[in-house]
């Protein structure tokens, strides 16, 4: 829960507090007045014992000491009583926590699009890690992962089953081991081949068909537009095109834009030459998308907040407001105050 969660605490009936305390005060005042009057009335009744010359009492050290203790208990008693009254007043005023849940969060569809061509292998693990971090910081979004080389393979479709997402990303990380290029270890190679099966379908020896990969990812979103959901593609590639794609990068970008998809480019740093990097960047930034280097660890936070900020303006749905009763500390104070009151009462009357 990163944002869009405005939790405010307020009282359902704030006027109850002054009313409650006012009534309590009135009761106390009336009790005192009645007591006074009764005392005045019973000035000479049989229960009153008149003594004289008792002024020496206050000069006795033990009396002074005990009186200090008595005053202390009295003060404590008053304090806890007032505390309990206040707490009771607050509980009566029904404190609630109002949570504003922004439905935009849940309305987000994100397709992670990963280039698994040989030139990108060295960076793929890093990018998968980055995806995991992204997945951790989202709540309610649907995420899909698609890998492509010469063709595309959908690893998992749009889902908010984060356990599955996590598991698949872990698997991807294991499979996309950079050692696969130089190793003779069969398990590593098998893992890679198994994971990228379907993406490496060699069409006339072509690979890294970037535009086709992006176009494929653009088609992964719901076609049903009755439910408005924001659409994003996080597209990781080095733009090292090896062949003739059906869609050029520009075509694929146009397709994505026509489907209201916002684009986030993630460049596999150090991969290809400067021209392909520049092309990638220019295409994406011109399409109004964002563009980052994959090896910039500081960019993660920026991407997350940028993604969220950008998405936030796309939608303007009514927030969902939930109110929860929070007796919270007040109830505890009420109980503590009452217990304190009885303890003091007992001490005074012991």
């Amino acid at each position, binding site marked *: 829960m990163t944002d869009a969660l405005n939790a405010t605490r307020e009282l359902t009936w704030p006027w109850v507090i002054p009313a409650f305390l006012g009534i309590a005060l009135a009761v106390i005042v009336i009790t005192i007045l009645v007591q006074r009057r009764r005392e005045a009335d*019973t*000035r*000479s009744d049989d*229960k*009153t*014992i*008149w*003594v*004289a*010359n*008792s*002024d*020496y*009492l206050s*000069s*006795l*050290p*033990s*009396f002074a000491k*005990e*009186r200090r203790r*008595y005053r202390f*208990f009295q003060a404590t008693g008053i304090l806890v009583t007032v505390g309990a009254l206040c707490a009771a007043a607050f509980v009566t005023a029904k404190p609630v926590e109002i949570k504003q849940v922004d439905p935009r969060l849940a309305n987000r569809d994100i397709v992670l699009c990963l280039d698994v061509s040989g030139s990108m292998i060295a960076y793929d693990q890093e990018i998968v890690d980055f995806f995991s971090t992204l997945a951790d910081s989202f709540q309610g979004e649907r995420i899909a992962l698609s890998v492509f080389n010469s063709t595309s393979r959908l690893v998992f479709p749009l889902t908010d089953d984060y356990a599955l997402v996590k598991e698949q990303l872990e698997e991807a990380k294991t499979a996309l081991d950079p050692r696969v290029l130089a190793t003779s270890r069969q398990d590593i190679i098998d893992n890679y081949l198994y994971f990228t099966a379907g993406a490496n379908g060699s069409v006339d020896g072509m690979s890294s068909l970037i535009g086709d990969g992006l176009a494929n990812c653009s088609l992964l979103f719901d076609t049903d537009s009755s439910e408005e959901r924001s659409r994003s593609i996080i597209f990781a590639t080095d733009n090292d095109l090896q062949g003739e794609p059906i869609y050029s990068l520009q075509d694929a970008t146009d397709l994505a834009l026509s489907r209201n998809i916002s684009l986030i480019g993630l460049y596999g740093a150090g991969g290809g030459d400067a021209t392909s990097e520049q092309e990638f960047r220019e295409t994406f930034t011109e399409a109004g998308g964002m563009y980052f280097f994959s090896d910039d660890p500081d960019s993660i936070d920026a991407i997350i907040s940028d993604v969220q900020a950008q998405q936030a303006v796309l939608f303007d749905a009514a927030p969902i407001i939930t109110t929860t009763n929070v007796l919270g500390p007040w109830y505890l104070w009420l109980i503590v105050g009452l217990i304190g009151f009885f303890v003091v009462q007992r001490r*005074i*009357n*012991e």
Partner: protein
Amino acid sequence: MSTPQGRDINNTARLAQIRAHIDLPVLKRAAGLLEGYHRSIFKGHGQDFDDLSLYSPGDDVSDIDWKSSARAGIPIIRRFQQQSNLSVVLVTDIGRNMAAVSSGGVPKGDTAVFLASLVAYVARDRGDRVALVAGDSERLIHRPPRASTQDLEVMLAQLTTLFSVDAPAGDISIPIKRTLSLFHRRCLVILITDETRPAPEHEELLRHLKVRHEVLVLQVSDASPFVGARLGDGHTVRDVDRSLNLPPFLSKRLNIQSEAADYVRQRRAQSVELLQRNGIVNVVIDSSQDAIVRFTAAVRRQKHLS
């Protein structure tokens, strides 16, 4: 003695009441003491021979009539009619402090009236006249010396009405000053007050009083403020002079109670010391129960003093 009985006392003839007390067997000894030990104010060193009486411990040895003693085989003293009738002045504290409860459990005023009655009875028996000077910080009541039973009854009845918790605060210097200005002939001044009075600030007045008159101080003891806690049962203890905040939390503390008892003991000792310094005999009386015995003991002590 409980309060209702105290009320009865107020409504019957006070002197008769005293007589009833003195007739009690336990008090016979006291009656004898009154006759034998009272200082010459009542009986003693006069010119006119009155009678012969058995010597009792405490009598002045110089009063022994040796011839009669030799004849009888036991010590016999001569007693003389006093030369003139002296006045007895009852200087009574009637402040609200005297309306409080004594440690005997009855209002101190009741005990004070009983003591006044006792003195009046003895004085009337001797034909002495009794005057009353009663006062507090605002009031001052003076009744001139009278000897008749009726006058004494009226005086005591009036005294009874003066005690109230709503009365002004006590101040014995006012009646003492009035006594000094009213009585120039030597009198027996009996000061009836409570145990905190006379205080050190009254010492000068007492000295003056002592120079001119015979002085006997009868002090009615104060009830402990802890009496309410001991009785329990919803009793509230209140001080006549000040607001006394004595919740059970404080009044039930034994350490406070014992310290208070020590203080009261010390205060009484100081009072005795103050009076002894000035040659004045005092006695602390709890209630009318012990009044006669202690009063006569005090009278005896006074005779020894002078």
